[in-house]
């Protein structure tokens, strides 16, 4: 009963105690706080449809926590992870979210990491007044008014599409865009967004096709795009098989038109499905500034440092690409910065802290949160990279046109 009153005054009981003892003797504080670890809830679909990416994220998440614990944890307290595998099933995600916020007494919930699973958990987590780091890219996930404690720890889908359209029009100087997307909700949604961003530049796609991602051959769609006079193709699908068929079809038709699109096109899995590896040339996928190497072929320092530190266990997760495990890292890093600044795990305080930090420099990229915008990730963190230019260290050289 008194706890509620204390929270209203802006001080949780724990904060009050810590503060009081802190004043009494500066050294006693960790001793008292140590008895209760920080509990981070973590929901990731490490089995099911998106498993390989999620496993890499999960690895990045746990490594980052381990690093922090090695340095003595946060606020002098150890971090405990309570992990649940939602198996890409939204109803499981809902159950686990409830379990974590009600039963496991967590301080923050990270994940679920797919939009489809994250959407149903928003109301639950905000209802329980827990801080929520959301790992999905769909726009609707973030709303500082409805879900004041929800923060996104990656880019939004619109940012991807905005950057991709800008790349096609400004860098590649192409205006006759053909959109080919799969018939999943995500594909159709993205198609509409591309059309919107093109319209903002007074352009109309010359051809659009929505295709079943399991369709064994997409040559037909590709030829229709060619007939329509397209000079660039943009694809929106996260089905590796579908993307590979598209790239294959373009290669087999000897049509050297650039393909620009979803990060799936960068996956090694796609390359393996190509009849010839050279078909991967002239295919551009959405990547991140943190993947782009400098003139010496070096990755950004904080990225390289993280990878060096964990080079013994990173092996299996390299194939999923740097963004996956760095996204897992970002969730922990963002929370850690907010908590350290707040000095207290009370969600409202961490929220205020996150909104007031000028920039959080996670290896994934810079995040800037304000009271009005919880998207955080900055447009300039996204760049297009050339699929076939993947370097052994997992990075990409900057794209050179022409």
């Amino acid at each position, binding site marked *: 009963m008194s706890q509620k009153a204390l929270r209203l005054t802006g001080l949780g009981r724990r904060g009050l105690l810590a503060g009081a003892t802190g004043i009494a003797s500066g050294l006693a504080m960790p001793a008292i706080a140590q008895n209760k670890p920080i509990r981070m809830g973590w929901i990731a679909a*490490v*089995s*099911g449809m998106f498993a390989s990416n999620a496993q890499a994220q999960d690895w990045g998440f746990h490594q980052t926590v381990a690093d922090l614990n090695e340095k003595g944890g946060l606020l002098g307290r150890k971090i405990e992870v309570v992990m*649940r*595998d*939602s*198996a*890409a*099933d*939204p*109803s*499981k995600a*809902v*159950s*686990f979210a*409830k*379990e974590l916020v*009600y*039963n496991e007494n967590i301080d923050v919930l990270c994940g679920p990491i797919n*939009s*489809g*699973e994250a*959407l*149903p*958990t*928003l*109301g*639950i987590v905000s209802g329980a007044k827990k801080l929520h780091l959301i790992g999905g890219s*769909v726009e*609707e996930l973030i709303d500082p008014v409805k879900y004041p404690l929800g923060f996104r720890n990656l880019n939004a889908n619109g940012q991807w599409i905005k950057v991709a359209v800008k790349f096609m029009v400004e860098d590649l100087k192409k205006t006759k865009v053909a959109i080919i997307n799969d*018939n*999943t*909700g*995500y594909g*159709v*949604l993205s198609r*509409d967004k591309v059309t919107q961003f093109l319209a903002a530049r007074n352009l109309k796609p010359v051809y659009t096709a929505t295709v079943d991602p399991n369709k064994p051959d997409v040559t037909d769609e590709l030829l229709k795009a060619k007939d329509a006079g397209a000079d660039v193709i943009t694809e929106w699908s996260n089905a590796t098989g579908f993307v590979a068929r598209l790239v294959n079809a373009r290669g087999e038709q000897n049509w050297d038109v650039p393909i620009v699109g979803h990060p799936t096109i960068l996956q090694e899995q796609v390359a393996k499905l190509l009849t010839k590896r050279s078909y991967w040339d002239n295919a551009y996928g959405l990547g991140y500034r943190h993947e782009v190497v400098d003139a010496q072929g070096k990755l950004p320092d904080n990225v390289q440092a993280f990878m060096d530190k964990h080079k013994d266990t990173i092996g299996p997760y390299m194939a999923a690409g740097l963004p996956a495990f760095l996204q897992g890292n970002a969730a922990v890093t963002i929370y850690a910065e907010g908590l350290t600044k707040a000095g207290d795990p009370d969600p409202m305080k961490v929220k205020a802290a996150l909104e007031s930090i000028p920039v959080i420099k996670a290896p994934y990229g810079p995040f800037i949160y304000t009271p009005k915008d919880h998207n955080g990730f900055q447009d300039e963190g996204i760049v297009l990279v050339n699929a076939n230019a993947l370097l052994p260290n997992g990075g990409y050289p900057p794209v050179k046109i022409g």
Partner: protein
Amino acid sequence: MKHSLVRPGIVAVFTVFAALLPYITGNLYYLHVATVIGVYWVLIATLNLLVGFTGQLSVGHVGLLAIGAYAFCLLAGGQGWNPFIALLAGGGVCAVIGLLLGLPSLRLPGFYFAMATLAFGLIVSELAQAEQWLTNGSVGMPAPSFPAPFDTPWGFYWLVFGIAAFITWMTANLARFMWGRAMVALRDSTVAASSVAIPIYWTKLIVFVFSGFTAGVAGGLYATSQSYITPDAFIVNLGIYFFVAIVIGGRGVIIGPFIGAAVLAAIPELVGPLAKYGTFFYGFILLVVVLVLPGGFGELINTLVEKLRRTPQSSTHIEPDLEQLRTAIRPRA
């Protein structure tokens, strides 16, 4: 009729226990699990009439669940209808769709029907993805909650509990009177059923429409229990779960599948790491039960009770009572 005290007694104890469950656990997460089991039960109870009693293997009820959920969210959320009216309307929509689906497909033999309903489930998820103007595509939509006093987790639990109890009562009535016998008859022997003038096709159809209606109601409740729906929430595997619950519980036993539903829903929740193997596990259980115990646990218990209750009878001695027969054949003559 003679030994009628045991069964109502069990039912009463169970009802009181279920109604008081929120007080017993006092934990919102367990309450959520109990609520979801209740929601599933609303669907399974009548699906059991279709699968267990009538013998029609519908794999596509998850499609009806989805339609009910979307209808509820659109009407109560988008159109601002009263949630209770929207819930009934969702049921109504599913009853009509059930009718349209059942009209052609219930004429087909078993496997054809199963495939047609499986296909129906796939079509629903295809359309839920594609028809963005209606369903919001993969982004999905939030589900409204019910007005007070059903707007709290406890209140909602009791609402689900009340509806589930009402539906269970209805299915139990159907099962114990002539309609129940007719359903079992056309499952076990269509020849016998038609020899006593049971309208086989219409009986199947009416049961299918009824189960469609409750699947729609369950859909609305499901949406609220999840607070948000996306097409991904209605995967075919959920349909397999419904099946396994019915088969383990025992086909043709009203309350048996409840135990199946509860156990199956609770296991992955209580043993988190099993989530990954969930569907494999459902398949495995289904196979084992079909092979070892085709009648399910419900029928096993029934048989045991039967054995305990009756003294074994020696061979039947047939001694007709002709006078009685005469009066029975021509009662008024």
